[in-house]
């Protein structure tokens, strides 16, 4: 069960010839896979391709009708290895993941796959998480394509073009016996657009056919001498076949005038922003009618030498628009031109920045510089380009720089991971700072304010492994944090197994929130919900014990801050040897609310007695020190200015987005903070007994309150 339902998107997968698909890029890609006749699909979720996995997970009926096998793979390596089904059998298959991180994990399988080659078309959809909004290191998938020789598609951000290229990509893969990568950037994945649909295609050859008629060929296995043969095949057979197909099918595009003194060569993904930049320079209209010759590389690997040569032959200079570094295309094109002795000068990273997003603004500057150097006449009638510099230099705006606060992502309201880090903070106050290895997942937000916990992160599921060097007797122990997602991705073996085997004395906290929450709440092995298509409810504790850990503690309610703190303290101080594993479990609040909220509304509507909990702060008890916020960071726990001239500092306040998780009260109690917090329980549809009890109590209480009020000095006049 993902964070949201994809029932509507599943309907889009049923569209056929004559229909128009309107929606997100990544869903257009999903539809294109079905139109291409895939027999199987796998992958691992992560922005920006999560929705591909989510919609397929909800699309059982559509996939069953077509005879398509779908797997939520254990990790990207598992997904890549799945593609081996296409080695011997004419099965089309596709996998998807977040790149470059996922590609890193998958590399071993990909290299083996690419060496032996494929019979059925294989496509690896990589969500290129690069540039603004990315959550990972800034690298390019391009290098992986080159090193293992897999063709790299980089289509123009246009649904029609992307879908078309996917269909052609499978053919390319089959013609050249080579896996194909489809690179789509974050914004293209989440881009709303449309394309004319075709009918879905049932795979001609199914997985079942393959199972029933097994085939093998030792020459396809990476082992000498076949491995040497593979390299020769790559060079002598597969590469020429691919180049031929790409040229014949004109996968790369020529735009604009046939001739010109200068031209622009670009990755397909850069096309829209290049057109916008040209428009600012007066060299194109909004519909892509350009005055500058363009060579749009929808296939960025391999570089088609003949096409490059043809484009550059009559030109004085060309500009290579290639996002990210190193500048592989620029190097390749330079090599082509030198070998063929074509004199066009090559510009690229000399006028454009080496790294970062190639926005229309960045391209505007780069293309303008390029034209100034090579063909300034073209800039003759440039209209005024948009420019925010004057307004940004205004003192009133300058002043704003010091004012606008950073707004980093953080744990959601009611997140069950918050009390874990609050407890770690309390332990830190008592036992001092420890070396903490963080991991990938929502829990990585611990490295940011207010918790500021965690020294490194080395990759998904590698938090525990990254403490492995700290395996000596010392005054303090290392702490590693890992999520349930990372645990099943590889952390069970690379982290816990490794620690058991090497007798590591450190503390290992496994944050179990029943889903891979950071990627959108997909089910995993230890998810608690029943899932008809998967076997869930596999215990992390049992797995950890099974691999040999002895000191294992399960905390079933992370909100019990006191228990969490005491368990951590025990783990850090116990004389027991070997890894100290704490499994801290509570359901992801986003998912829980999605499940529980409608149930509760329904119960209230149906007249069932229901207790709704919410937290509050007594503003006259709160002293405005904000110590509670420094141990929480909950979005619903904020501050407010009181209308009181005696109070300089704002007091804590809880807004109505509070879900009553209990963290505030637990922290106030465990940290001995202050008595300002209260939990308000509102009983909807109270029973008669509830009402009677409350009525009796309140009448006595009311009498007592009136009694005391009578003795108070009237202060109204002093207001």
């Amino acid at each position, binding site marked *: 069960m993902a964070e949201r339902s994809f029932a509507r998107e599943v309907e889009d997968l049923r569209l056929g010839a004559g229909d128009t698909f309107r929606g997100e890029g990544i869903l257009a890609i999903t539809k294109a896979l079905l139109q291409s006749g895939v027999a199987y699909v796998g992958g691992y979720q992560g922005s920006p391709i999560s929705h591909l996995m989510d919609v397929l997970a909800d699309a059982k009926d559509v996939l069953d009708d077509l005879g398509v096998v779908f797997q939520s793979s254990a990790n990207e390596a598992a997904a890549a290895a799945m593609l081996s089904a296409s080695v011997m059998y004419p099965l089309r298959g596709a996998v998807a993941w977040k790149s470059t991180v996922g590609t890193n994990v998958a590399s071993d399988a990909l290299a083996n796959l690419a060496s032996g080659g494929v019979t059925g078309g294989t496509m690896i959809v990589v969500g290129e998480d690069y540039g*603004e*909004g990315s959550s990972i290191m800034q690298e390019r998938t391009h290098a992986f394509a080159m090193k293992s020789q897999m063709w790299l598609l980089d289509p123009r951000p246009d649904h029609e073009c992307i879908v078309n290229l996917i269909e052609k990509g499978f053919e390319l893969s089959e013609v050249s016996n080579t896996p194909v990568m489809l690179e789509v950037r974050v*914004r*293209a994945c*989440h*881009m*709303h657009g449309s394309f004319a649909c075709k009918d879905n295609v049932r795979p001609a050859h199914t997985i079942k056919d393959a199972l029933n008629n097994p085939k093998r060929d030792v020459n396809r296995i990476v082992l000498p001498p076949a491995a040497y043969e593979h390299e020769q095949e790559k060079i002598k057979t597969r590469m020429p076949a691919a180049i031929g197909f790409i040229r014949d099918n004109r996968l790369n595009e020529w735009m604009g005038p046939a001739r010109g003194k200068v031209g622009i060569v670009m990755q397909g993904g850069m096309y*829209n*922003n290049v057109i*916008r930049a040209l428009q600012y320079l*007066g060299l194109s209209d909004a*519909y*892509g009618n350009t005055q500058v010759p363009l060579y749009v590389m929808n296939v960025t690997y391999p570089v088609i030498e003949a096409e490059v040569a043809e484009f550059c032959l009559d030109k004085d200079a060309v500009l290579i628009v290639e996002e990210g570094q190193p500048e592989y295309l620029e190097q390749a094109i330079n090599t082509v031109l030198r070998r063929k002795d074509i004199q066009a000068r090559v510009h690229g990273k000399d006028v454009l920045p080496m790294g970062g*997003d190639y*926005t*229309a603004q960045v391209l*505007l500057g780069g293309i303008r510089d390029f034209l100034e150097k090579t063909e*300034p*006449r073209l800039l003759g009638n440039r*209209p005024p380009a*948009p*420019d*925010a*510099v004057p*307004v940004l230099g*205004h003192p009133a*705006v300058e*002043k*704003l*720089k010091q*004012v606008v606060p950073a*707004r*980093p*992502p953080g744990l959601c309201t009611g997140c069950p991971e918050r009390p874990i880090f609050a407890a770690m903070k309390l332990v830190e106050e008592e036992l001092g700072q420890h070396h903490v290895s963080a991991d990938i997942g929502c829990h990585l937000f611990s490295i*940011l*304010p207010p918790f500021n916990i965690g020294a490194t992160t080395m990759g998904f599921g590698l938090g525990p492994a990254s403490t492995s060097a700290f395996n000596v007797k010392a005054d303090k122990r290392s702490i590693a944090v890992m999520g349930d997602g990372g645990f099943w991705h590889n952390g069970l073996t690379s982290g816990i197994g490794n620690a058991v085997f090497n007798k590591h004395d450190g503390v290992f906290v496994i944050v179990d929130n029943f889903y891979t929450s950071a990627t959108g709440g997909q089910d995993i092995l230890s998810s608690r919900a029943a899932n008809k298509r998967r076997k869930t409810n596999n215990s992390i504790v049992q797995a950890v014990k099974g691999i040999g850990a002895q000191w294992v503690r399960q905390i079933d309610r992370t909100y019990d801050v006191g228990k969490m703190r005491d368990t951590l303290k025990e783990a850090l101080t116990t004389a027991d040897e070997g890894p100290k594993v704490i499994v801290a479990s509570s359901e992801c609040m986003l998912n829980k609310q999605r499940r529980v909220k409608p149930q509760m509304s329904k119960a209230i509507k149906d007249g069932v007695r229901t207790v709704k909990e919410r937290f509050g702060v*007594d503003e006259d008890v709160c002293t405005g020190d*904000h110590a509670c916020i420094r141990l929480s960071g909950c979005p619903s726990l904020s*501050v407010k200015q009181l209308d*009181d001239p*005696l109070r*300089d*500092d704002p007091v804590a306040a809880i807004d109505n987005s509070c879900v009553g998780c209990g963290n505030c009260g637990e922290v106030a*109690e465990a*940290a001995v*903070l*202050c008595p300002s917090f*209260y*939990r*308000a*329980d*509102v009983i909807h549809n*109270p029973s008669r007994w509830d009402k009677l009890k*409350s009525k009796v109590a309140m009448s*006595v*209480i009311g009498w007592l309150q*009136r009694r005391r009020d009578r003795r108070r000095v*009237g*202060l109204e006049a002093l*207001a």
Partner: protein
Amino acid sequence: MRDERVRLALPAAGDATERPISIAIVAMGGQGGGVLTDWIVQLAENHGWVAQSTSVPGVAQRTGATIYYIEAMPPLDGRKPILSLMPTPGDVDVVMAAEFMEAGRSILRGLVTPERTTLIASNHRSFAIGEKIVPGNGIADKGAVTGAIGVAAKTEIIFDLNALAIAHGSVISAAMFGALAGAGVLPFNRESYLDVIRAGGKGAKASIETFDAAFDRVKTGPADVAAPVEPRPASTKPAPAPLDPQLSGLVARLTREVPVPAQAMARAGLRKVVDFQDVAYGAEYLDILVALSTTDRNAGGAERDYAFTQAAAKHLANAMSYDDVIRVADLKTRAGRRARIESELELSQDQVLHTTEFMHPRMEEVMGLLPAGFGRWLGARPRLLGWLDRRVNKGRRVRTYSLPWFLVLYVVGGLRSIRRHSLRHAVETDHRDQWLRNATDAVGINYQLGVEILQCRRLVKGYSDTHSRGLSKFDRTLAAIKLVERREDAADWARRLREAALKDGPGKELDGVIRTIESFAS
């Protein structure tokens, strides 16, 4: 140098400056920016336009700042426009900000420019974590955003869209859609916006009401908008005669003896102190304050607007109404407190309310209640104290409105009668006297330093450990002030110390300033 550039006609390209309408929505994750984006795309598509939206979900959607971007344009002779995936600074027609500081951020990104941009922004605040964790007041200055909007936006539509949405039972996206329609920047009529919402089905009624309210608000200007709450300066108008005769005597004395500039604050202070204890305690407050004002006058306070007395009126009241167990129990059992919670929760007649308090008393708090002599005797016996603490020191969930617990709190709240004999009172009084002595000693030599020392009282707040930490910061600050008290810029250093102490919890900034002082003062 001769300009050799040639003005080319571009017949094939048509009007090269004609560009799509561009809309950027800046919001925080979870504010419904995605819904609003889909509505705008649908609106444009319903008119036969080509619309494209992009966003960057992923981690930013976990409450971080995020941006949605839409471009739309009619097709030309069957040709689709090529639309950009990111906003270009200086080239955005409409920026919609779902929070006021996010509006500021959009200006800093260059998305709002005076030639082009209509800025629709909600002026409500959702504080960032950096603003909330400061022990003092870390709230960013809204005025700076208002100032920048004035120079950056072509047209501005600024009001509390969030409050409007809540008032109509919906969320901010519906209000923003209404404001967009009202702004009239897109060539679509009101009805076509409503069609989009209606097609959404679920929640459409509340969305439409919110849409209408926002639309009307843009068309007709402010009517129902409450001014944002800012700290109000103390009221300066004379108070009506109080009912209690003793208290009225005090007020008369206040008016007579406290310098006029400090009277408003003194009235607020008097109110707080009497509310904390009784009228006699109010008289004590006034005695001290009047004595301080005499010192102030002798130090030349008349020329300085009696800043010393003003500061004293405020901080003395806070110091005298320290946060003890009696005060907490009293506040928790008042009728007004329950009424406030009920109204915050919008409790209806057929619902039942309970509250649970999270209390964690330690032996220190119990000792504070004991008569001073007995408390000190006990304090000198650490083993006995430890034994007692193990029995007392634990978290207690107090069901406020169950009779047994209420009675406990009620009785504790009624212990005011013995408060002035308690150990806590003795400790607080000593501390207060020492602080005031420091301030009066200083004010004669360096007036501003005296004022600054009074203001250091702001550092003492919180309960248990937080309170101890505050006290420790206060002590360290006053000790550091001692080191520089003879210097001319002593008041500056005092202010710097206090501000540093309010910057972070553990007091690292404060330690930094103290080290600087020690480097030149010892």
